[in-house]
């Protein structure tokens, strides 16, 4: 045990140095965002970018909160929760099937999902718009959920597949010998053991939906169906951007997803220590 500790410690000096360097690289822009959001718009450029603002002002945050923020927040939360929930609901079984089935059709499906990784969203917006229009859900939140699910599926399945196949076959063998169907195996074995992966994709999918801009732009129009990324429009004009207010908006839009990640990470950590033992 002591040997192990000493070895780990020695190795991580290098890692620690890298970690500190990376910390600075990460924190600097974040710091800039926060202090700039507390600046007033006047004299924004005259000040040194990295200095603390001298009259700290919360006006920008006030503007944000008064400008329909809570409406957009609600829409974003609903769209993200439903999209991610449904995506996981249908992707976990699919990944399980791909990993455990010898069927050639499922092999082909996996390759189809790989194709999905390479589809550029911007190319598909016109056809997706037409489909959504035909379905009659244009300008509702369903218009954001349905394509959101479709485009989250490839990545979700690829990551899940990578994780699932490391679950030892013997565990499944044991259940099969006991006469379990694959649905039971999915529920009682795959699901509990793949918690870290599920949390990983859940956070990443949530993130993509939360920050997704293009589909909301094209598939909604009324302010009542607007999500957070579009709400920033109120502070952007044709010839000017109110940078401090926009950054205040950014901070307010990022806090919920940071919260989600912090909570999710705890499950991630505990899930990983459980490992594959029973």
């Amino acid at each position: 045990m002591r040997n192990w500790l000493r070895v780990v410690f020695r190795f991580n000096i290098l890692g620690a140095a890298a970690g500190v360097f990376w910390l600075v690289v990460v924190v600097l822009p974040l710091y800039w965002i926060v202090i700039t959001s507390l600046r007033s718009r006047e004299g924004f450029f005259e000040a040194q970018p990295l200095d603390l603002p001298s009259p700290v002002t919360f006006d920008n945050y006030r503007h944000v909160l008064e400008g329909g923020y809570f409406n957009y927040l609600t829409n974003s939360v609903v769209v993200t929760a439903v999209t991610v929930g449904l995506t996981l609901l249908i992707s976990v079984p699919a990944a399980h099937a791909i990993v455990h089935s010898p069927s050639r059709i499922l092999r082909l499906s996996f390759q189809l999902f790989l194709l999905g990784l390479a589809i550029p969203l911007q190319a598909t917006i016109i056809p997706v718009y037409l489909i959504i229009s035909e379905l009659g859900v244009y300008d509702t939140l369903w218009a954001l959920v349905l394509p959101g699910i479709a485009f989250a599926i490839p990545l979700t399945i690829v990551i899940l597949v990578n994780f699932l196949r490391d679950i030892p076959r013997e565990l499944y063998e044991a259940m099969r010998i006991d006469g379990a169907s694959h649905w039971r195996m999915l529920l009682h074995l795959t699901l509990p053991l793949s918690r870290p992966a599920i949390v990983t994709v859940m956070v990443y999918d949530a993130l993509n939906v939360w920050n997704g801009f293009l589909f909301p732009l094209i598939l909604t129009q009324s302010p009542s169906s607007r999500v957070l990324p579009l709400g920033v429009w109120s502070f952007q004009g044709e010839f000017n951007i109110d940078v401090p207010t926009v950054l205040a908006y950014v901070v307010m839009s990022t806090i919920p997803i940071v919260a989600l990640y912090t909570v999710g990470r705890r499950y991630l950590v505990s899930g990983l220590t459980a490992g594959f033992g029973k």
Partner: protein
Amino acid sequence: MTDAAGAGAGRDSDGPGLAMPVDAAPPGARAGRKRGERGGPNLAMALPALAMFGGFALAPMVLVFVLGFTQWSGLGKPVWTGLSNWHEAVHDPVTQGAGWLTLKLMITSWLVQTPICLLLGVFIAGRQRYRSVLAVIYFVPLLLSTVAIGITFRALLDPNFGVSAAPSLAFLAHDWLGDEDLAFYSIVAVVSWQFIPFHTLLYQAGVRQIPRIIYEAAIVDGAGRLAMFWYITLPQLRYTIVTSSMLILVGSLTYFDLVYVMTGGGPGFATRLLPLDMFLSAFSRREMGRASAIASLLVGGGLLLSLVLVRFSGFARMRSQQEGL
């Protein structure tokens, strides 16, 4: 016995002989035996995912592919033009340049991100408490929206007002986004900044899966830290490396949002990647057919890349890396 401080998957000695499988049959035989059995999970499990994906992602892509054979400005009716878009796209110097630039982005991104993420992932997989706080901070770049990152770095990299102006950081004073050579690398740097957290997470999860017993056995054999990293950690991470690399390479192929916001493809053509060329063809030049052809080529390229990676690394054989333990 669960080891709370263990860095790898703890294996219980409970359960019917699961801790140290003594399976002596070679992997091929095992797979063969399985094929004869009850046939595995049925298609129904994957059907909903296939249906959603097919309806809202594949079907539009097929439409895009068909549009590639037409000329259309977005208004009125598309006009069938056969292969001329494809021919033009492949021969147009701007699109060719975009193609090479995209390839450069793919390779550079991979070279920059993979080593950093590997090291960071291994580092964060350690268990000291401050590391979990760090891990949250490290992750925030990924959580920011494109608008946020675009505005932030546009401002920080401004040649007159950003970090270039801070007197104590004189070595950072360059025309980051205005110089044609620098602009590309600035983009690589910002994209890496955004996505390193994600791949670090993948590697972290991958490292945590490596059973501790392997390391313990190696220490008993007298292996040094570098040897353990090289001979244990890396091979065990093979499939994670493939997944991460695939996501980086294919992701770079279709990367659009941030570049559009930060440079719009400029200065000149210095950052005009293929997805940008496609988007600008569609909405600036109103050449939807041409843009669709480029999009289809992108998808084709991405798929080819993924398939090659997958075949080459044995990813598709769905076998666990931990077999034979």
